[in-house]
């Protein structure tokens, strides 16, 4: 019984971080109807940012979170202007292709620079023991930081002017334009924010698991699943979706061979989509 509970709790902890990654996708998707396929590359950027800052510059591990968030933001804004700006409002395939190509370029650059070997950032934190089980300190801290970031995002979107502007543009771009919101600037900001969230989640994932330049794909896939589970455009939904995914993983694994987890995950995912086509926590768009 303890084993089951331990598995579920650990699943939730890690799932929260997946939720953070998904927040980045859902924000961009919700605001500008763009499927951001550079998401994986930004997650990897966060991971490598962590590696470079901690090993090359010797910065303490968790202190790298804010710089990576900031760098991710500026990178996102930059990416917006080169890859996304021209394809907003065009058929979705254009933005898909555009971001996909940029992703290939970024991953190709990364592979050229660092190859595909495994990188590991050694983080040792005392874990929390419960009977014979241990919750690694890294999992706990990553979940706490995720919650903090999510709370900050929520506060930003609902209590600041810029946040409200973002939500306005997400709701109805033309109407937002009519009331004087500089929508292009808001779009670039949102993209930057989405990328920043991706990088931050990458950094946190980097404290948990080893990574390679190609790791982005797995987490990008998980982000899309979580986004679909949680509903487009809803950051809270994304976080909840992440936790839900972690919950599914944690509940299923004690009972079935580990290799079945993904299968069951996807089956449940399909079932959820059939029952809730817009995601469990979807908001209605006007």
């Amino acid at each position, binding site marked *: 019984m303890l*084993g089951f509970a*331990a*598995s579920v709790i*650990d*699943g939730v902890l*890690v799932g929260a971080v997946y939720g953070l990654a998904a927040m980045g996708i859902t924000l961009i998707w919700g605001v500008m109807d763009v499927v951001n396929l550079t998401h994986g590359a930004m997650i990897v950027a966060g991971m490598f940012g962590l590696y470079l800052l901690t090993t090359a510059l010797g910065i303490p591990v968790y202190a790298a979170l804010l710089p990576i968030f900031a760098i991710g933001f500026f990178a996102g804004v930059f990416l917006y202007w080169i890859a996304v700006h021209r394809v907003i409002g065009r058929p979705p395939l254009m933005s898909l292709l555009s971001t996909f190509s940029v992703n290939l370029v970024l991953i190709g650059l990364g*592979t050229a620079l660092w*190859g*595909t*070997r*495994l990188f*590991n950032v*050694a983080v*040792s934190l005392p*874990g929390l*023991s419960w009977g*014979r*089980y*241990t919750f*690694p300190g*890294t*999992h706990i801290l990553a979940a706490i930081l995720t919650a903090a970031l999510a709370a900050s995002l929520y506060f930003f979107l609902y209590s600041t002017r810029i946040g409200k502007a973002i939500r306005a543009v997400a709701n109805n771009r033309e109407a937002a334009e009519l009331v004087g919101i500089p929508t292009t600037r808001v779009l670039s900001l949102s993209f930057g924010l989405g990328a920043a969230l991706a990088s931050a989640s990458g950094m946190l994932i980097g404290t*948990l*698991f*080893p*990574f*390679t330049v*190609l*790791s982005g794909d*797995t987490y990008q896939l998980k982000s899309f699943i979580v986004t679909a589970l949680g509903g487009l455009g809803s950051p809270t939904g994304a976080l909840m979706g992440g936790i839900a995914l972690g919950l599914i*993983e*944690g509940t299923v*694994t*004690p009972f079935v*061979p*580990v*290799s079945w*987890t*993904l299968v069951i995950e996807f089956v449940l995912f399909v079932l959820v989509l059939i029952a809730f086509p817009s995601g469990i926590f979807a908001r209605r768009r006007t």
Partner: protein
Amino acid sequence: MRIATFICSAAAALVIAGAAFAADGNTITIGMTVSQTGPLNVDSVAQMRGVEMWRDEVNAAGGIKAGDKRYMVRLVSYDDQSQGGRVQQLYTRLIVEDKANFLFGPYSSGLTGTAAVISEQYGKIMMVVGGAEPKTYELGNKYLFQVITSADHYLTGAIDALHSKNPHARVAFVYSDDPFSKAVVLAARGEAKESGFDIVLDESYPPSTTDFSPIINKIISAKADALLGGGHYPDGATLARQLYDQKADLKWATILVAPGDQEFASLGQAALGITVPSQWEPQAVYKPDFGLTGAEFSKAFQAKFDLSADYHSASGYTGGAILQHAIEKAGSIEPEKVAAALNGMDVTTFFGRVKFATDAKHHGLQIAHEMVLAQWQTKGGKLQREIVWPLAAKTADLLYPLH
């Protein structure tokens, strides 16, 4: 118009014909693929370094002597990206376009199996230096030669060593879902049962897994005190690290491949006590019939690459050394003659004894080479691998339990 087309075709024909004569009469071409990218990268490049070192040594000495001719070695390699599909294309290219005389296998059983199909199709000798799965040799072949010990013997030493410390161990088999690891565990399962162990968990995981916490929780729930498993470098190293983080409290952990790599030392405390079945360790003291001794090989490798040699590099080098010996014995580079020389070989190099099975049902399988069990221990504050089994070859006592 027709004349133009004719001239173009004639020119093309000449170019193609010319290419057929491009190979120098006194060079042999050896083809192989390396996983420069992809998850098999670490071990594959190590293997390649061994081959390159052999090539440079041979060429510096004037080439391979076959009869009254001397052949320089030209190595042609491509990046297979750790993918079977690429292996298929590239080995065909190596044979058809690059006119390879001999082939070396890629790294990993999965890719070797794919390459073997192509090499047999074209009747080219392939030295297998990085593929341990025995099934590849049971499909009927004439030109495959496995230099390393096959997968079904990988965990024999570990099980014997564990038995000597804990005859009633509760064993968890946790291994990667790939042909090599599955072949290893298939044989090990039977040996574990025969040794009187209790198999409390037996699960495979997808090779790309990075989150082992669910499976580690299962190991803890099953109250296992020994772990046997792993796969290749990325998953093995990650598993080791997370076992340590989650305090899985194992008294014994044997992980395949990953701890055999020098890079495993970067895990720090998490590496301590982990055992690995190894094809060769620098401290092994086989007396070679020809060629370098183990110490000479290690020293030369370190000098050339500024890296410690591990068993992947040693096996790559040995593949070359054995092929060279066979060519010299046959006095020719003709495939049939070289194959005959290889089939009749029973030699010891610094890598250990090498003898190939010659019956049709297992042709090419390595039947004489033995593995050692190495363990990460601290010596003078530094983490390094010591040979702990078999007792006759040991350089240090077995550390048990591992913490």
